[in-house]
Structures are given as structure tokens and as C-alpha cells.
């Protein structure tokens, strides 16, 4: 064989490698070109038959090709986990793998817990079967107080044992148990004896936060409302703060968010108010602090709460609260 023929063969091997590298897998390429009986070795064998002087130039070319293929083939290996050819099944349509999912209320709760953890709030819970004392009396709503009008109650044993109507009962218990500084949030089911409809399911989920220390002010509460509402509803959320009466706080405060559906012009979603009441709060009533054994002249604190159902409904576009609790949530 002449040197020229050999040179031609060398370039053919390179050409053939280039042609095959897109269709063959790593293993096949390796065997075909770099294996013991591969093309490159065949070239070396042929070179060994040449005379001493003739060897030099083709040897250089074959070594170059060998280096080239070795480097190139490595990149093929790393770019594909499957070492053989592609799996033809990858071109077929399939159904997505099933996973488990959290309920929207849990998802929202966790989101909020994460936020409040960051600011030093632990998470607490409390009983759903409550006494009148913790649910109402300690929260500034003694028997027959006009504010009882706000919350229709399910009784297990009237008038003392009831299903809690608000997560504030956890606040009442914890204020009694702990000494300042106190900082916690709690999420919980609450019950209302109200006819069910699209916005009433007889159960709701409250989210509550409490912070008691020296020098805690409404300015702190405004700050936490601002931060947390923007965190959960988005940085562009427009909030207005106004005075509002809640029996367990004084002064009371309500943050409203500008209705995003009508941009404050008034629509059905915001009951033509332009604003949506999203939460409530205020400075813990001195009477509540005193009942819990905390000196209201030294310590002050804020408490706030909002409905998780409302937030979950807004976030996941659920128009009927009952769908949250009757198995109608489908994970798509």
C-alpha cells in the first residue's frame, strides 16, 4: 500500500467518524474506532507494515486522529447518560407523574409561617373546643355584650363550652401562660353557626399573630401588616389603614387592600367599596393583658388576624368557600 492510499484511508476514517457520531452511541463509537479491532488500530497495523521512513508522516496523522476521536468521544459520553442509542420511547406522549399536594389552606399557612418565623414568631395552636372565658370573656366580649352579635356560636354545653369562633382564644391562653417578650402566630379552624353559602362554610381558618413586649406600638403593627401583606399578596399591593372596632383591641386597626379587580373603582368582588377588608388588628386591650397577669402600664402588644380561606380563595381563584372543604379541590 502506498503512503498516499494510506493518507486517503486516514481521512476516510475521520470522515466516517464524523458521519457516525450523531447516530451511534458512545459504546458503539468507541468499539468502532478506538477498540482493539477498531478503525484506528487497523490504521496503526497498516502503518507497521510500512518501511521506517514511510511510517513517520502517516503515524503523525493517525495519532492526530486518535487524539481527536478520544477527546470528541468523551464529550459524547458526558452529554448523554444513556450510553447506547436514544430511547425511542422518549418521543411518545405520556401522563405526568403523580405527586401528592398540600391543601391550599396549608400552603398559605406555611407561606405565612415562613414569613413570621423570619421575624422571630414561633407557631402555637390551641383547643377547638373552648370555654366561654377564653373565647369571649378574656377577649373583651362578656356574655350579652353587643359584640357577640358578630359571632354566632356553636355550643356543646351552653353557655360555657363552645366551639371556638376565633383563633384569639389561643392568644388568651398563651398570654396567660407566657411572660413577655411574647411573639407567636397561630393558624386554626374556627366555627360559626351561620347558614352556609358561597362565602360561609360554618368553618373558617384564622391566622393570628401576637407580639407583646415593652414599647410595642401601632407603628410596629402597621409595619408588620405592610410587610406581611406585600409578602403574601405581592409587592404592588396597595394598603390603606383605618380605625376599626374589635372588642379585644384598643386602638383597633384594619388594613384594606385596594381591589385588584377594579383598581379601586368598585366592583362586585369588593362589594363596590374599591377596597377589600383583608385583616384586622390593634393594640391588645389593656383589660385582656391585665386578665392574663401582664402589667399593661409596662407592656404593650399588638394582635392581628386574618382569614386564610379568603386568601386561598383569592390566590387560587376559588369562588365558593365550600369547595375548599368538600373534596372538590383537584390537583391538575
Amino acid at each position: 500500500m502506498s503512503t498516499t492510499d494510506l493518507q486517503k484511508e486516514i481521512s476516510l476514517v475521520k470522515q466516517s467518524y464524523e458521519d457516525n457520531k450523531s447516530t451511534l452511541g458512545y459504546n458503539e463509537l468507541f468499539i468502532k474506532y478506538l477498540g482493539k479491532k477498531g478503525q484506528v488500530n487497523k490504521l496503526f497495523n497498516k502503518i507497521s507494515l510500512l518501511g521506517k521512513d514511510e511510517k513517520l508522516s502517516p503515524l503523525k496523522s493517525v495519532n492526530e486522529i486518535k487524539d481527536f476521536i478520544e477527546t470528541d468521544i468523551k464529550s459524547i459520553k458526558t452529554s448523554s447518560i444513556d450510553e447506547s442509542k436514544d430511547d425511542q420511547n422518549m418521543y411518545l406522549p405520556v401522563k405526568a407523574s403523580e405527586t401528592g399536594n398540600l391543601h391550599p389552606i396549608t400552603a398559605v399557612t406555611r407561606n405565612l409561617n415562613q414569613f413570621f418565623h423570619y421575624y422571630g414568631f414561633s407557631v402555637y395552636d390551641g383547643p377547638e373546643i373552648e370555654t366561654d372565658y377564653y373565647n369571649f370573656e378574656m377577649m373583651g366580649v362578656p356574655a350579652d355584650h353587643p359584640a357577640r352579635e358578630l359571632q354566632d356560636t356553636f355550643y356543646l354545653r351552653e353557655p360555657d363550652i363552645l366551639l371556638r369562633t376565633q383563633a384569639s382564644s389561643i392568644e388568651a391562653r398563651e398570654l396567660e401562660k407566657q411572660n413577655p417578650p411574647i411573639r407567636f402566630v397561630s393558624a386554626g379552624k374556627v366555627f360559626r353557626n351561620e347558614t352556609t353559602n358561597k362565602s360561609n362554610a360554618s368553618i373558617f381558618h384564622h391566622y393570628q399573630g401576637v407580639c407583646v413586649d415593652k414599647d410595642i406600638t401601632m407603628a410596629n403593627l402597621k409595619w408588620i401588616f405592610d410587610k406581611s401583606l406585600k409578602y403574601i399578596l405581592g409587592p404592588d399591593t396597595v394598603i390603606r389603614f383605618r380605625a376599626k372596632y374589635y372588642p379585644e383591641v384598643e386602638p383597633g386597626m384594619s388594613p384594606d387592600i385596594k381591589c385588584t379587580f377594579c383598581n379601586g373603582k368598585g366592583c362586585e368582588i369588593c362589594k363596590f367599596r374599591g377596597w377589600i377588608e383583608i385583616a384586622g388588628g390593634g393594640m391588645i386591650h389593656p383589660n385582656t393583658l391585665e386578665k392574663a397577669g401582664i402589667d399593661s402600664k409596662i407592656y404593650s402588644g399588638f394582635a392581628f388576624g386574618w382569614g386564610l380561606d379568603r386568601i386561598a380563595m383569592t390566590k387560587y381563584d376559588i369562588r365558593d368557600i365550600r369547595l375548599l372543604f368538600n373534596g372538590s379541590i383537584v390537583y391538575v
Partner: protein
Amino acid sequence: MKIPINWLKNYIKLEHTPEEFGGIMTQLEFMQDGPITSINSQDVVDLEVRQNRPDMLSIIGTAREYAAYINKPVIYPKQIGEIETAWGKPEINLNVISKDVVKRFCTVEITDIKIKKSPDWMIESLESYGIPAINNLVDITNYVMLEYGMPLHAFDYRKLEKKKGQAVLTLRQANSKEQFTTWQGTKLELTPKDLVVADSSKPVAIAGIIGGANSDINGKTSRIILEVAVYNHASIRRTSKWHLLRTEASTRHEKFLNPEMVETAVKRALFLIQDLCSGKITKIEDFYENKQDPIMIDFDVNEIPRLSGIQLEPELVVNLFKRLNFEVLEQKEALGVNKNIFTVRVPAFRTDVKIEADLVEDVLRLRGYQNIPLDPLSSAPPDYSTSASIQLEEKLRDILVKLGLNEHITNPLVKYTKDNLHIKLENPMNEDMDSLRIAIKETLKQAVEQNIKYGNDKTAVFEAGKIYTTSKGRYEEEKRVETVYRNWDMLSRIKPDLESVFKQLGIKRKGITASIKKNWIEYSLNKKIIAVLHKNGFEIHTDNLAEILSVQNILELPYISPRTNIPQIIKEDITIVLNVKEQVESISSIIYENFPYVKDIFTSSVFNDQVSGESITLTLVFEDDKKVLTRNKINETKKELKSKLKSKFSVRFKD
């Protein structure tokens, strides 16, 4: 409260458009509720009034708040001049029996009444609020109620049953089953809890709520008894709720009204009655035994920054108080140090103001909450103290979601069934939801049925919630996490999921005791039930588990273990023949307990042989990273194991 703007203008000159007015009132605590409506081409702004401010259930109350905002005086309407009467003097024709619930009851006898149509301005005002005009006298009682927020009532004197020629009004509790018909024609059966106004034989009104058909005003009325009163709010509220009677009067009477406000309402009404009905006042009687003293509060200006974070000059604070009709009496100097303490007299109509914090709110809302800054919490937080049970519940959610289960939340109210231990509600909404669940699956199963309708024929769901039981007369509630599976296999899905929960919680199988019940298995750890497996799923007893596991345990990932040696893993099958399949559960517990190298046991085949019984092949996974297990040792272990099992159960082994 609907505020007709034209009516409001009688008492204050409006400096804003109705829209701006709505915005101002919202900021002041009275949220504009819905768009401004037009009634008979009059603008009406609807304001939310919460339970603390009955004075705001009136046009003048609203005018006062707006006046404070624009810092202008209110123009009060005309009243009769001082009358020759002794307010609060003993009464002759009043017989107050229920003294504990009657704070004040004032009556005026008026003769020569001319019943006719009201003037147009009054008709328009009432209609723009939403009360139809009836006749001049009834309209006046409604008009004054809306002006001042104090309900009034008029009885036709002629219709009252007399005693020795005198009409005597008695305030007493109703007799049991006493019959009463309201002026609207509703028939009621009263109870002794109801306070009534009665003549000498029968109730003529349910006090503070509604008048009777037997004494109402009509075109022939010429002599009346006008009444303005304040009762114990709770009594009115109870009766109103019990009889489902909500009236304009009861809405006000069930809140805290100040008896001091009675005179103003009477004097205003008398002016209008003289003016529009040409009535002659003949007698005023006033039951008012416990005069309400004005509330005085020592107010420390420093409470404002302490509670709100903003400092206000004492002069400004005094000014804001005055605008809100608080009287500032003096600036106290305590021990020579001016502590900026004022004594503040609360106006009679502000029954919501009792303590310093109430005054702080008034100052702040008048200045506007938008002027309160946003201050970050700057003090160090207390120690992290989220409980183990909360952490565990969250972890269980994560584990089950990882295992492919969807979370649901269901309403724990269920229908009561006699044969079990449901706690029954005393006042359920309906019969289908009259008690509390004793297992989550009771309500979760219903959710699954619903979910299946949406096309999820193969379903695995869980709920983390509570169950409610009674024990020795005490109500108890317990946290549980329960799963429900539909169309999933026990051996390939349900039980492996439960085993995985144990594993992911780092609970060694060895420590768990399984006890076989009728058709479920109870798993216990430290003698506490931690889980139950049944046909369609399993339940985790969160509270019990949380008591055993510490917060640290729960936060760890116990199933992760670094390897330095390549472990020796040997799988060995043993086939057991037995009659009672349930025993396999105990058999595996015994194996776990006694043979530490057995890391896993699973069923690889089940064969039911009619003759010899169940034949079950278990695969035992021996694992050892120190490589001391030898063939001999395994054979020895198997032998030991078989003899142990044979001694405890009636089983055979196939080899």
C-alpha cells in the same frame, strides 16, 4: 347606617362632595359600605357602624364626627325650652317592677294631637333613609330616633286599659306563654325573659323592640303617651334574638345607650309634636333611679407615643379632644413634675370610651391612621418555641405528600348516630351537621366520594386535623393524621406507605408493637398507640407521637446514613404455612425484635392452599456494614428464628 346627605346638611355645612365625605368617614372608623346611592334623587352614603358606637346610628352623631374632622360646630335642631318638670322624680302612673333591667323610662302625656300627613321635608328625609312615612306623630318618633339614635314610642292613650280612670304603664317581665301581637300583625308567645310595657291587664309593647297592635297610633288618635327609655342592653338583645325580631329600636337598644340622652330626645320630639301635631303636654314622668355619672379619665399624653409610636404636642391633643366633644378639665401636676396628665370628661353619647387607650384611639383616628409611621420590630425575639406536635404535623404532611397523597380539609361536623360516641351540639345548624366527628375518615371519605366524581378513580388522600371525644364527662380533642385510599392495593401501596411513615420519622421497627384487633392493627410505641391500619387506610396519632419524639428528632432526617463500607446485603426467603394470616404481623414484629441484622421484611408471595392453609413467603433482608455475617451465621439465625416462631405460633415452614 344610611346617611342621606341632605338630611345631614341640617346639622353641618358640608365642605366635601358625598364621595369625599364617605372617604373621610371611612378613615374615622365608619367605613363607607358600598357605592353612594340615590333615593328620590337624594345622595345616600351607607356607613358601617360597629357595635361600640350606637351614637353613630344617628344623623347628628355622624354630623358630630364630620364636624370634628373639619373643625366646625354642629348646628343642633330646635327643642322645646326648659319645661316645668322634675326630671328623674318619682312617678305616679309608672310602675317599674323589673328595676334591674330598666335604667330609665320617661313618659310624656300629650293631648289634643292632630294626626295628619307629615310635612314634605320630613317625608323626604324618612324615605331617603328607607322608612316609609305613616302620619305626623309616628313619623316624628322615627325622625327623632334617626336624628339622635334614641328610639321613641307612642301609645294611643284611648286604647290603654285604665285603672281608676288612669292609664298606668307597668314595666314587668312577661308571663309564661303570654300572647302578644305586634303592630305589624306578628303573633308571639312571650316568656318570662321578655321585658314588656303593659297596661293594667296586658302587654302593649315589647320593651325596646316593638309596639303592640293593641295600642298603636291611627288617624283617630288624639291623646298619647310618648315614651323614651334605656334598658339593660342584654335583656333587649336576648328577647330580640329569641323572637327573631330585629327592629330599628332593638338595633339601638341592644347596644350601650346612655340614659342621660333621654332628655334630649324627649325635648326634641316635644318640639316637633307641638309644632306639627299641635299637641299639649300634660304630664311628664321619669323613672331614673340610678343616675349615670359622667365618665372621667385621667389621661397621660405619653400614652399616645407608648401605644402608637407618634409624639403629639399636649396642646394639639387637647384641641383634638375638644373637637370630639371631650371636656378637658385640668392639667395635673404630679409631685411637681408636669407629666402632662389631663382629666377628660367623656360626653354622654360616647358610651364606648372608658379608658386611656380609648382616648388614644380617638386622637389617632381624628389625625388619621396614615400619619402613623411604619416602625420595624426592634427588640430581640423570644426563644424559638414551636411545639413538637406542630412540627410533627407539618412533617407528616411532607411525608404523605412525598408518598403521593393529596391533602384535603373537611368540615368536622357530622350527623349524629346513636350507636357511637359523637359529641352533640346543643344548637346545630341542621340535623346533618349536629355533632363532631370521632374519626377524620368519617368526613374524609365523603370528600373522596366527591373527588372521585371529578375523574380521580384511584385516590389516595389525607387530612391532618382533629377528632373529638368524651372521656368521663370531659370533652377531649386529639390531633390525627388520617389517610383514605380508593382502588389501591394493601400490599403494594397502603401498608408500604405506613411503613415508610415510620421509617421517615426514624422510628425503628423493632420498638413498635403491633396488636391485632377485629379488623385493624394498632401500632404502639412506648405503650402509646401511634398508628392504626385498616382496610382503606391508616391513621397516625399525632399527639401521642409528639410526646415520644422530641422536636430535635422530628427535624432530623433519620433515614439518611452516610456509608463508608459497602454493606453486605443478603436476601433470604422463608415460607410460612399457617392458618391465621393475622399472625404474620406478630411474626414480623418478633423477627425485628430478636434479629438485629434483619433490616426489612416484606411479603414476596401469598399462596392460599385449601388443604394446608395460607402459605406466605417472606423475604428477609439482612444487612451488615461490618461484614461479619457469614452463610453459617445466617443459616443459624434462620434456624433459631424458626424454632422461636414455632414455639409461639402454630406454623410450619416450607423449605
